[in-house]
């Protein structure tokens, strides 16, 4: 009986977590007449893909989607290229006193800065150099968001590697860069991939920076494009929900891939918004 109650409670929690997502998906697959039916059609309705077809016919939606892909992959790649050597340098080189620790903490503390604090100067600075409404400006601020996270995560992964292989390679005359690229990189690949996944999710989901830095249609990311729909066309549920499903899918797929690293990644990666 007690076990039964426990499972019932767990199932209820699962239902509460997933039902809203289920509702989004069903609305995106319903004809208008079914979307607004009263009482709501919880389970049975005639599914249609017309809302998906409709949003992909809009030039703007394709643009948002592409922009989101460019910004999230671009910022992730740059953060990894800058962050991995930094993590390696912090872990594998002798530093005076506790510099390595101090630098690591300073790097991480950047992640704690509230976006609303950095966005005002970033906006003014990017306006001066004419990078407002450009994907480059958005990639730049997302690098700032993800770089501390990459350094912090990769520090841990590099630390876990045995030093002996690297030292042997150094004795064989391999350069430090060679050690990083040919020995460390293949060994930390799972950790690097997980880190990349979290960076992609953060950049893909990012809203405040994109809202302020990309206000023209050609530079908008998917979240900002959807938000424009949400606030302007309150009642266009078909387009809104279909776009929502499209925006959600990559994240869920990525997350499934990085499941093993959830605790390590999300505890830091969730410092956003």
């Amino acid at each position, binding site marked *: 009986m007690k076990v039964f109650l*426990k*499972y019932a409670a*767990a199932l209820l*929690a699962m239902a509460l*977590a997933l039902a*809203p*997502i289920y509702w*989004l998906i069903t609305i995106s697959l319903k004809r208008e007449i079914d979307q607004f039916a*009263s*009482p*709501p059609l919880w389970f049975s309705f005639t599914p249609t893909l017309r809302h998906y077809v409709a949003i992909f016919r809009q030039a703007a939606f394709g643009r948002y989607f592409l922009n989101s892909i460019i910004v999230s992959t671009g910022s992730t790649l740059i953060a990894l290229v*800058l*962050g991995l*050597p*930094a993590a390696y*340098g*912090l872990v594998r*080189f002798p*530093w*005076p006193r506790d510099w390595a620790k101090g630098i690591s903490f300073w*790097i991480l503390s*950047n992640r*704690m*800065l*509230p*976006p*609303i*604090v*950095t966005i*005002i*100067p*970033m*906006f*003014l600075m990017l306006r001066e150099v004419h990078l407002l409404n450009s994907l480059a400006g958005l990639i730049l601020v997302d*690098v*700032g968001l993800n*770089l501390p996270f990459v350094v912090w995560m990769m520090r841990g992964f590099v630390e876990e590697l045995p030093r002996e292989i690297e030292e042997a390679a150094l004795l064989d005359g391999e350069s430090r860069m060679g050690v990083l690229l040919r020995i460390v990189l293949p060994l930390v690949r799972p950790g690097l991939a997980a880190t990349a996944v979290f960076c992609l*999710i953060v950049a893909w*989901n990012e*809203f*405040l920076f994109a809202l*302020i830095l990309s206000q023209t249609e050609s530079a908008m990311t998917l*979240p900002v494009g959807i*938000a424009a729909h*949400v*606030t302007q066309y309150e009642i266009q*549920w078909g387009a*809104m*929900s279909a*776009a*929502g499903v499209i925006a959600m899918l990559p*994240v869920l797929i990525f*997350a*499934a891939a990085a499941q093993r690293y*959830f605790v390590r990644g*999300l505890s830091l990666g*969730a*410092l*956003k*918004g």
Partner: protein
Amino acid sequence: MTRRIPGLPWVAPALLVLAALSLYPLLYLIKVSLTGAHGFTFDHYIRLFHDRLFVVAAAQTLLYAAVALTLEFFLGLALALLVDSLARGRALIRVSLLAPMLLPPVVAAVIWRLIYNPEFGALNGLLRQLGFHTASLTWTSGRSTALLSVILVDVWEWTPFLFLLLTAGLQAIPAEPLEAARVDGASYWQTLRDVILPEMKPAIMLALLLRSMDLLRIFDQIFLLTQGGPGSATETVSLYIYRTAFRFSNFGYAAAMSFVGLVITMLAARGLMRLIRVS
């Protein structure tokens, strides 16, 4: 320099980029906050003390954070303990419970607009089916219910985060003290109070620290669901700063507010960190 500190060239590019993206903007922010129409001024900071809207926004931010944190913490803890005690299906349940926090905030907002809509939304639809009158239940668009409605969305979206961190803390408890309590014939509640919770204390403090920092800067959900309204029923500090800077182009005052907000958050975080280290 590089001879004495060989790691420096490896770290320097990342440090320079971060300095350019956070340290420099921070200094720039302070400069903007001290600049008025006629050069240097403290006016923006003085104005803060007379601004009733700022006080309202700050009070509501604190209320929002306190209520959301309390609900999310106790729910997250209960769920972590519950799922951990199950014999089967733990992995599947955990993954499902984490889903809400992974969604883009904008998608969470879309979902809850579909649910909260007073006429066609799922929530009032369900309540009508159960025989309730829903004419007066306007959720996010009602003055008295808006803040609570937004908090509930936060609870849905971020309880998973507390659940995740507390589950990790729970799994890190060594087996011996638990075993000892069992041998002593301690009841579940005694074990929870005397062994599990004390052992989980670092994880609990970390989870509370991280979540409260995020709650104090809350922006996305509120902007997307209510834009701070109706009236100023869901106005928070981040929203007020956003509007001051990007709707009314008063960057100096917005900069002053965000600098003060930053200092307060950092002091609170330091205090919490010290508490964590002590315990």
